[in-house]
C-alpha cells in the first residue's frame, strides 16, 4: 500500500520526461547522479530515518557493490548485471555480520562503529592485489560499434540517456519498496524502535531482528547503486568508493531533504547534486578547490538557516494550501 501515490508518480514522470528535452550531457549527468544518490539516500533512510540508527558507513556497501560487479567483469568478463545482484548479496552478508556486534551500541558509539567498519574495509581493499589494490580498477571498454543489446548486457552505453532510465528504474523500485516498508508492519516496528528502544522491546518487538532486516535491505540497495555508479564512471579505486565523503554525502542530502520521510532523499538530492555539479563545472576546472569551498559554505548556510531541512519548507507551503504535511520529521537517536 502506497500513500500519496500521485505525488510519487508525478516525480517519477517528471524525471522520466525531463531528460528528453535536452541533449546537454551535463544535465543528464546531473540527473543520473541525482538518482543514484537519491536511491542511496532511500537506503540510508531505512536504517537511520526509520530505525533511528545513525550510519556513517554506507560507503562500505556502496563500495562493495561497485567492486563486486567491476571485479567479476574485469577478471572474468561476466555481465555486471549478475555482478550487481552478487554485490547486493555480499553487501547484505557484510551488513548482517557487522550488525550483530554493532547493534549493541547506542547513538554515537554505533555511528563511529559503522565508520570504523567502512574504514577497515577500505584498508583491506587498498592492499588487496586481487582487486588491484590502491591502483583501482579501470573497467574494460567494449567496442563502440556494439549493438544496443550487447551494450545493455555489458552496461556500457555511448550516450547518457540509457543511464538515466536505468537509474530511474532503480530509484523507482527503491522508493516504492521504502514506501511499502514504511506502511508495513516492519515500518511501524522500526519507528517504534526509533522512538524508544525499551518500549518497543516491552511491547514484544525484537529490535535486534528488525534493525538487522532494515540494515540488510539498506545494504542491498546501496550495493546496487554502487554497481551502477562503477559501470557509469568506469573507474573505481578504494579511496574514492569507500571514502567518508560518500557516506557523509548520503547523510547530508537525506537529512537536509528531510529525514525519516520517503521524499526526503529525492528532495535533498534534487537540491544538492545539481548544486555540487554546477559549482564543479563552473569553478572546478581550475583545480584550486574553490568549487568545494563554495559548496561547503552553502552547506553551512543551509544548515544554519533551515535546520529542519528543506522538507520543513515544503511542509509549510503545503499547510498554506490547507493540506496536511506529507510526512513527519524523524527524530534520530543521537544521545549517547
Amino acid at each position, binding site marked *: 500500500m502506497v500513500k500519496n501515490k500521485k505525488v510519487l508518480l508525478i516525480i517519477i514522470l517528471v524525471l522520466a520526461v525531463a531528460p528528453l528535452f535536452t541533449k546537454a550531457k551535463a544535465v543528464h549527468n546531473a540527473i543520473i547522479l541525482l538518482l543514484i544518490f537519491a536511491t542511496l539516500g532511500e537506503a540510508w533512510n531505512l536504517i537511520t530515518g526509520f530505525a533511528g540508527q545513525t550510519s556513517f558507513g554506507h560507503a562500505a556497501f556502496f563500495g562493495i557493490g561497485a567492486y563486486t560487479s567491476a571485479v567479476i567483469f574485469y577478471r572474468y568478463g561476466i555481465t555486471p548485471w549478475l555482478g550487481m545482484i552478487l554485490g547486493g548479496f555480499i553487501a547484505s552478508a557484510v551488513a548482517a555480520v557487522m550488525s550483530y556486534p554493532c547493534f549493541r551500541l547506542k547513538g554515537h558509539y554505533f555511528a563511529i562503529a559503522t565508520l570504523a567498519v567502512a574504514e577497515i574495509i577500505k584498508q583491506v581493499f587498498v592492499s588487496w592485489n586481487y582487486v588491484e589494490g590502491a591502483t583501482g580498477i579501470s573497467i574494460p571498454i567494449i567496442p563502440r560499434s556494439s549493438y544496443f543489446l550487447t551494450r545493455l548486457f555489458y552496461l556500457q552505453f555511448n550516450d547518457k540517456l540509457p543511464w538515466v532510465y536505468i537509474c530511474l528504474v532503480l530509484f523507482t523500485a527503491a522508493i516504492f519498496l521504502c514506501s511499502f516498508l514504511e506502511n508495513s508492519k516492519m515500518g511501524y516496528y522500526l519507528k517504534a524502535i526509533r522512538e524508544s528502544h525499551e518500549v518497543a522491546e516491552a511491547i514484544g518487538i525484537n529490535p535486534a531482528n528488525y534493525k538487522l532486516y532494515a540494515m540488510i535491505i539498506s545494504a542491498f540497495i546501496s550495493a546496487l547503486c554502487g554497481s551502477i555508479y562503477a559501470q557509469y564512471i568506469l573507474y573505481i579505486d578504494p579511496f574514492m568508493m569507500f571514502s567518508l565523503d560518500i557516506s557523509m554525502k548520503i*547523510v547530508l542530502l537525506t537529512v537536509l531533504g528531510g529525514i525519516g520521510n520517503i521524499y526526503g532523499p529525492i528532495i535533498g538530492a534534487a537540491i544538492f547534486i545539481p548544486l555540487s555539479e554546477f559549482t564543479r563545472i563552473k569553478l572546478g576546472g581550475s583545480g584550486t578547490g574553490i568549487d568545494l569551498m563554495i559548496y561547503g559554505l552553502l552547506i553551512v548556510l543551509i544548515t544554519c538557516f533551515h535546520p529542519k531541512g528543506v522538507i520543513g519548507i515544503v511542509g509549510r507551503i503545503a499547510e498554506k494550501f490547507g493540506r496536511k504535511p506529507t510526512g513527519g520529521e524523524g527524530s534520530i537517536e543521537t*544521545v549517547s
Partner: protein
Amino acid sequence: MIIGQIIANGILMGFIYALVAVGLTLTWGVMDIINFAHGEFLMISMYTAFWMFSLFALDPLGALPVCIAVIFVLGVITYSGIIKRVITAPGLTALLATFGFSMFLKNLAQYLWTPNYRYINDAFVSGKSISLGGIVIGMPQIVAALASIILTIVIMAFMDRTRTGKAIQATALNKNTALLMGINTEKMYAITFGLSGACVGAAGALMATFFPIYPASGALYSVIAFVIVALGGFGNIKGALFGGLIIGLTEALGGFFLGTQFKYALVFLIYLIVIQVRPKGLFGW
C-alpha cells in the same frame, strides 16, 4: 630491542593523538556535537606554524602559543558563527554544519596555499635524537609527547579545579539547570569550543615539525580522533588520553607485525573489539 623501539614510538605517537582527541572529546562531551572540522583545525594550525616559520623564522616551539591562540579564536568564531545557530536543531543537522565547514576550510587551504606538501625542515628540534639503552627516539617526537602530556594535565586541572571548568562540567551535565544556577551557558559553550581548538592548535604546532603539511593533512587524524574519543568514552579526558595511547601502540605494533598497510585497519578493529566489552567506551558510564 626493536620491540622496545616500536613500543616507545607507539607511546609517543599515542600522546600526540591523545592531545587531538582531548580537544574533540571536550566539544563532544559538553555539547554533544561531533565536530567534523576538528581535523581541519589541526591542518590550519600546522599551516600557522609553517608560515610563522617561513615568514618570521619563528621556530614551531616558539609558534606554539601563536597556534594555540589562533585556533582558540577560530574555535570561538566557529561556535558563535555556526554552532550556536544549529545546536538546538534536531538530529544530525549540527554535524552536517561542521561537515560543510570542514569542506570549506580544507578547500580554502587548497585555494590559498595549493595542495603541495610543505615541510618544516630545520626547526630547533629537527634531526636530533636521544638514545636510551639502545632505543633511539627523535627529538621532535619527544618534545611533542612531553608537551602533549603537560597540556592534557593542564586541561584536566582546568576542568576539575577552576570555577570555569566546573561551570563547563555543569553545563555538560544539564544545560537548563546550569542556566538556573546562574551559569552563562552560551559563554561556556564558546569557551569549550575555544579550548577544543587550543588543544588541537597545540597538537598542530607540535606535529608540524615531523609531518608533511598539506590541505588534507588533518582529515586522517580527525577520523582517528573520532575512534579514540569513542574508545575512551565521550567527554572523558582521561578516556581520550588512554584511548590515544592504545591507538598509538596498536598502530606501531600492528604496523610492525602485520605490515604498515594494515595498521589503520587494526586501529579501527581494536575499537570494534573494545566496544564489545565496554559498549560506552573505556571510561564511559
